[in-house]
């Protein structure tokens, strides 16, 4: 059957069951949008900005486990995707980005809205393609999906010149590739021996546990070896807070109890985690007293940051299943008891202002039980990571690796569209200013999204560093001059806005905001000198943890 290239792209999207795409049209991608217009089985979500579309596709992918699809035109449309693509790369989010480009004869001539997006995105994609031969188009799209969802997942970009979209090509429907079999873990004997010999094991679980849907196996594993589970930011939601095995968050702003727990362990088992610098501040000193076992699907992660004593390269879920069948059942609950004691001994610090962000988060956590939770990046993100009780895997959408301010609203839209559930976005006044234009998208679609803006008239996380490490010189972080009225902003976009400035009003206002069907924005006025504690200063170890501001470490480190 001969059809247009653009029509073949749409057919291939259907082959992949990609029924929702996010994007923004433009001159060199009109043909593809024209074909989407004629295809009722695909919902095309128009955003305000391509960056928002990319984050929405990420949020969709993270919340549903499917491959996210984002479409943009050439030139600025394509470059606006780059932050989202890089974000997906660092957090291993399966994403296919399709960009238009100028017709093949115009490539390389600095034509209008021409940019080498394949060259630009090479370092932040698993792979990318420029399709110059129209007949290659269907197989390239199929390959892009296959690459995005296989092994360690990630973004793939396909750049399609306009004449390739317009060319008539032969198309034959093919079934979607079955998900490639997870990497078969090879020899696990060394790992089994290490676990059996351990007296005080701790599990450090990361985003790989979410990506491979391994929560059940993780809990069974923790039960079998009586090990508490510390979660990286990307691993949060892999285990409910209520679980007996839940220890808390590990890393720069992780729970102090977890830092101490890890310090007492004789075996750290990293499962789908990568010892990033935000977890292993000083990678050469990380858990020197303990043995390290690393489970990861990406062989290149093994021994990359921290040298391991044993490793298993494979899908986390499958690996944990194998381990659960092989390791000895332990009876000694020493580490579980220690975990419970340390949690009691080292509770999270309280906030001091009239409205505590922690109070808001805890209340929302208790009353928006089913919601998808998104954040932007900064203090609010860490407070949510520390406090929120995520009800199930894939309910937490955050930018972990790239740390993208402006990620949240797009992600919340993608999460709400993908799951049909309410999305709650926690953001700061700094982050929200970056991409709040997507309120237009959320209100147009009448999505049930509630935004909590932790409004402290400063770029709080940078201010915190300036306080601790830069002698209180608040360079370019003071937003006092901002005249933004978030309630009016909400109303101007067709949403409802509320102000919250006192702990005693939390229940009333949060209940109201969460009961609305459409978009609501709650301007939460908080004190600018609330800090995210505890904090392990960058490049340091858990011995240097700051748990209160009476012991600031004034040092210039970045």
């Amino acid at each position, binding site marked *: 059957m001969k059809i247009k290239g653009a029509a073949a792209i749409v057919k291939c999207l259907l082959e992949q069951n990609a029924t929702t795409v996010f994007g923004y049209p433009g001159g060199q991608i009109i043909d593809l949008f024209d074909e989407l217009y004629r295809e009722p089985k695909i919902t095309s979500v128009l955003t305000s900005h391509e960056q928002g579309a990319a984050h929405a596709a990420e949020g969709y992918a993270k919340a549903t486990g499917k491959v996210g699809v984002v479409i943009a035109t050439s030139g600025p449309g394509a470059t606006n995707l780059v932050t989202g693509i890089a974000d997906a790369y660092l957090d291993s989010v399966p994403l296919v980005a399709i960009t238009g480009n100028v017709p093949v004869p115009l490539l390389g001539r600095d034509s209008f809205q021409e940019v080498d997006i*394949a*060259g630009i995105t*090479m*370092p932040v994609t*698993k*792979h990318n393609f*420029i399709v110059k031969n129209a007949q290659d188009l269907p197989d390239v799209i199929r390959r892009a999906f296959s*690459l995005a969802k296989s092994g360690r997942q990630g973004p793939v970009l396909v750049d399609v010149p306009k004449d390739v979209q317009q060319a008539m090509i032969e198309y034959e429907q093919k079934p979607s590739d079955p998900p490639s079999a997870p990497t078969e873990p090879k020899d696990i004997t060394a790992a089994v021996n290490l676990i059996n010999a351990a007296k005080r094991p701790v599990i450090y679980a990361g985003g790989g546990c979410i990506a491979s849907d391994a929560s059940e196996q993780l809990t069974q594993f923790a039960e079998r070896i009586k090990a508490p589970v510390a979660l990286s930011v990307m691993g949060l939601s892999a285990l409910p807070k209520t679980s007996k095995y839940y220890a808390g968050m590990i890393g720069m702003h992780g729970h102090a109890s977890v830092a101490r727990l890890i310090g007492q362990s004789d075996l750290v088992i990293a499962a789908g985690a990568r010892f990033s610098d935000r977890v292993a501040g000083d990678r050469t000193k990380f858990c020197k007293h303990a043995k390290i076992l690393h489970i990861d699907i*990406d*062989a*290149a992660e*093994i*021994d*990359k940051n921290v*040298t391991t004593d044993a490793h298993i390269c494979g899908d986390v879920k499958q690996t944990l299943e194998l381990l659960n069948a092989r390791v000895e059942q332990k009876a000694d609950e020493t580490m579980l008891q220690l975990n419970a004691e340390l949690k009691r001994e080292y509770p999270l610090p309280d906030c001091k202002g009239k409205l505590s962000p922690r109070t808001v988060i805890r209340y929302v956590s208790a009353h928006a039980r089913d919601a998808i939770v998104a954040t932007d990046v900064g203090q609010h993100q860490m407070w949510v990571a520390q406090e929120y009780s995520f009800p199930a895997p894939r309910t937490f959408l955050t930018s972990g690796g790239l740390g993208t301010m402006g990620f949240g609203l797009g992600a919340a839209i993608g999460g709400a569209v993908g799951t049909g559930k309410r999305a709650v976005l926690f953001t700061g006044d700094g982050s929200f200013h970056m991409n709040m234009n997507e309120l237009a998208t959320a209100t147009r679609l009448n999505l049930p999204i509630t935004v909590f803006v932790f409004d402290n008239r400063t770029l709080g996380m940078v201010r915190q560093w300036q306080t601790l490490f830069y002698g209180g010189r608040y360079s370019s972080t003071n937003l006092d001059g901002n005249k933004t009225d978030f309630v009016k902003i909400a109303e101007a976009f067709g949403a409802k806005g509320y102000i919250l400035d006192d702990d005693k009003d939390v229940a009333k206002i949060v209940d109201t905001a969460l009961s609305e069907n459409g978009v609501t924005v709650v301007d939460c006025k908080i004190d600018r000198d609330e800090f995210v504690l505890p904090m392990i200063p960058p490049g340091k170890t858990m011995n240097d943890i700051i748990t209160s501001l009476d012991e600031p470490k004034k040092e210039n480190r970045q």
Partner: protein
Amino acid sequence: MNGSTEKSHIISALVSNESGVLTRISGLFARRCYNIDSLAVCATEDEKLSRMTIVVRGDDSVLKQIVLQLGKLPDCKLTGELNANKSVLRELLLIKINAAADKRAEIETVARTYEAKIVDLSPDSIVMELTGKPGKIDGFIEVLKSYGIIELSRTGLTALERGGGKLNS
């Protein structure tokens, strides 16, 4: 990083013979801060594949990372380290030096000693060609320095393992 254990490694990689592949691989080396001493690309017996021979410096953990990171590129089909002692290592040199009439006989003697070929003559210069192990090339260049090197071009190392086997990772 670990100056004491840093040494040269020869990586041989079979990659897709497509545009952009060299950029992907050199970009990977640049952004992950791996040091390339030389990189040579050539056609192979299979028209779909090119062979890259890359000489890098680093300790064993860096080498392991390089091979694993290369392995993640879909365009990189096979990657492995060549053992220098069990491989044929060759490089081609073209070198142009000053050669006034009274020095020609001397230069020809040097060329014969190294089995270099004289491939171009002009009234006051000579271009010579030499193939050999990098060490031999280095030595040859050193000897010719006294005559005045006008310019030179080296291909960088290319290599194959000795014996009947093929590259496998």
